[in-house]
């Protein structure tokens, strides 16, 4: 669909409508469109108004799903720190809890939006934002962590077994982080779609069966 010169990005409008409850999507998105055209475009110009609109979409997401995303981020940070420093038991419970949280975000989306697409959107967006955090975290922490890791027998063993001949520990651990980033993008995309669909179906169906309750 071609974009109108006085309209916000089509994809952002689509995301906004998907995140809003079905019965309020039209009126609330209409209010935002009115503010965009009536106030933001004349005052900020196209780029500034688009940026304002995107912040409003982010606000709508954050207001409803911040808890799930925050829990996933905390879980990831704890898991990454314990992995880098080899502290605590390496439990398999982390991924299970992460999956449960992603499913919960999607269920919440399906319930709140009363549509499968809302659950799907909540699942995909949560996974995408988690991945953005993970990527930023790995790119920020790989070097300080590597200073500790290069003295850890576990990481020294991993370096010896998988590094190319003559490759330094620092070089190896950097590319190990880049590899993890690329793998996690693939895995999180798939998980976001699957949990999003499952949560969307269950959440929206539950809302149809039990129309009253928490938003």
């Amino acid at each position, binding site marked *: 669909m071609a974009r109108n010169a006085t309209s916000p990005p089509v994809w952002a409008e689509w995301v906004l409508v998907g995140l809003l*409850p079905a019965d*309020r999507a*039209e*009126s*609330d*998105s*209409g*209010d*935002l*469109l*009115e*503010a965009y*055209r*009536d106030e933001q475009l004349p005052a900020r110009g196209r780029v500034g108004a688009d940026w304002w609109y995107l*912040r*409003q979409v982010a*606000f*709508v997401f954050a*207001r409803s799903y911040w808890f799930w995303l925050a829990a996933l981020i905390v879980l990831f940070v704890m898991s990454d720190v314990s992995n880098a420093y080899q502290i605590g038991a390496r439990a398999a419970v982390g991924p299970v809890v992460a999956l449960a949280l992603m499913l919960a975000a999607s269920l919440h989306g399906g319930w709140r939006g009363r549509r499968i697409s809302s659950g799907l959107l909540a699942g995909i967006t949560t996974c995408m934002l988690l991945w953005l955090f993970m990527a930023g975290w790995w790119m920020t922490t790989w070097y300080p962590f590597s200073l500790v890791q290069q003295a850890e027998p576990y990481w020294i063993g991993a370096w010896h077994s998988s590094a190319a001949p003559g490759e330094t520990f620092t070089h190896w651990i950097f590319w190990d982080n880049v590899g993890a980033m690329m793998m996690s993008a693939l895995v999180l995309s798939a998980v976001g779609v699957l949990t999003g669909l499952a949560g969307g179906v269950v959440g929206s169906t539950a809302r149809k069966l039990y129309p009253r309750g928490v*938003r």
Partner: protein
Amino acid sequence: MADILGAFEQAVLLAVLRLDEGAYGRAILRDVQTRLERDVAPGAVHATLERLEDKGFVTSRVGSGTAIRDGRARRFYRVEPAGVRALDDARYALDRVWRGVGRLLKARS
């Protein structure tokens, strides 16, 4: 006494009351921004209206759209008696909290 309305909830509810027949999302947003003299996210107003409706303080009906909204419907709000009582309670609570403090403030200024 039920939970006292927060300052932002009061601002939104009073805007609905003030705007009367013209109380829809964007108009409420503008009124709240003007009264509070700060930028307010439309999502914050929508969320508050949703919460106030869940509490039975306001009701809403869907009205017509306009060209600037690409014809998208406007949702008009109305304050219910429970909402008026909640505003009264909030004002009464605030009055009690402030009672006697004006003299002390004057003495210290």
